[in-house]
């Protein structure tokens, strides 16, 4: 690109580097930076030591409304929304910072990382496109991710009400039983 600022270029490379380090797929880099595909490929290989995975990104909103992913997606969106509202940030920088804070939450609370960088990015795009939105739970008032066309006035979040079909593993069963007991105690 003719007349392109060197500083802008450096910023783009830094962004792309951070995104790759956090595990973003090539499609994310192509959308969020103005770098050429060839440079992005080289950068990807240099950082990860392998070629990027091929194939399309997961496209459906379904994943984000299943129980455990929804909790993680909602936590990420709370952090993202907080950063966007308190600071003047470009969307992609806010996604990077929010994702780092999300990873930090998982490691300090010994949680498995459920939301990948690519999914987190996808989530923000779905919300921008109004395919998903954040809605306050009618019981606890915390904002959770839900489909835009789902009814909000009776919405109860996955923490207040754990669906009976959430997970099929032994661990998940034990977790569910404990939660039902807690819910009944209140």
């Amino acid at each position, binding site marked *: 690109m003719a007349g392109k600022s060197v500083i802008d270029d450096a910023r783009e490379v830094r962004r792309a580097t951070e995104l790759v380090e956090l595990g973003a797929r090539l499609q994310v880099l192509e959308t969020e930076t103005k770098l050429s595909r060839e440079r992005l490929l080289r950068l990807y290989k240099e950082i990860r030591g392998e070629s990027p995975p091929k194939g399309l990104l997961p496209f459906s909103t379904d994943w984000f409304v299943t129980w455990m992913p929804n*909790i*993680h997606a*909602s*936590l990420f969106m*709370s*952090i993202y*929304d*907080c*950063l*966007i*509202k*308190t*600071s003047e*940030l470009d969307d992609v*920088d*806010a996604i990077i*910072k929010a994702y*780092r*804070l999300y990873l930090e*939450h998982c490691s300090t*609370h010994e*949680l498995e990382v459920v939301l990948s960088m690519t999914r987190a990015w996808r989530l923000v795009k779905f919300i921008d496109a109004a395919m998903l939105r954040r809605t306050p739970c009618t019981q*606890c008032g*915390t*904002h959770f991710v839900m489909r835009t066309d789902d009814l909000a006035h009776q919405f109860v979040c996955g*923490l207040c009400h754990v669906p009976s079909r959430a997970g099929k593993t032994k661990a998940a069963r*034990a*977790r569910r039983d*404990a*939660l039902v007991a*807690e819910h009944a105690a209140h």
Partner: protein
Amino acid sequence: MKTEQLLEEIREANLTYLLLAQQMIRQDKPQALFRLGITEHVAELVDNLSTGQILKIAGSNMLMCQFRFDDQIVWNLITSHEEDRSRSMMNGVRAAMLMSDQLAEAA
């Protein structure tokens, strides 16, 4: 605790807090706002403090850091000791979300 000793402890806490806050703000402001729970306006004020000013503020008889929330729900969530892993996971997530949402609303 004698008054002089108390004042000395306050001074030390203030100094540690102010220096840490300033360092965080200079390193990564958006992240610092999130961690400290302050507005950009306050962050700029703290960022611009000279060492002399920090020493002067720290030497006050009042603490310069404040409890972050007066919300009973958040206190219950962060103080609860759950044996059950998934329940403690949920409390942690909910507390983090409530704090983020509160800060976003205040901005």
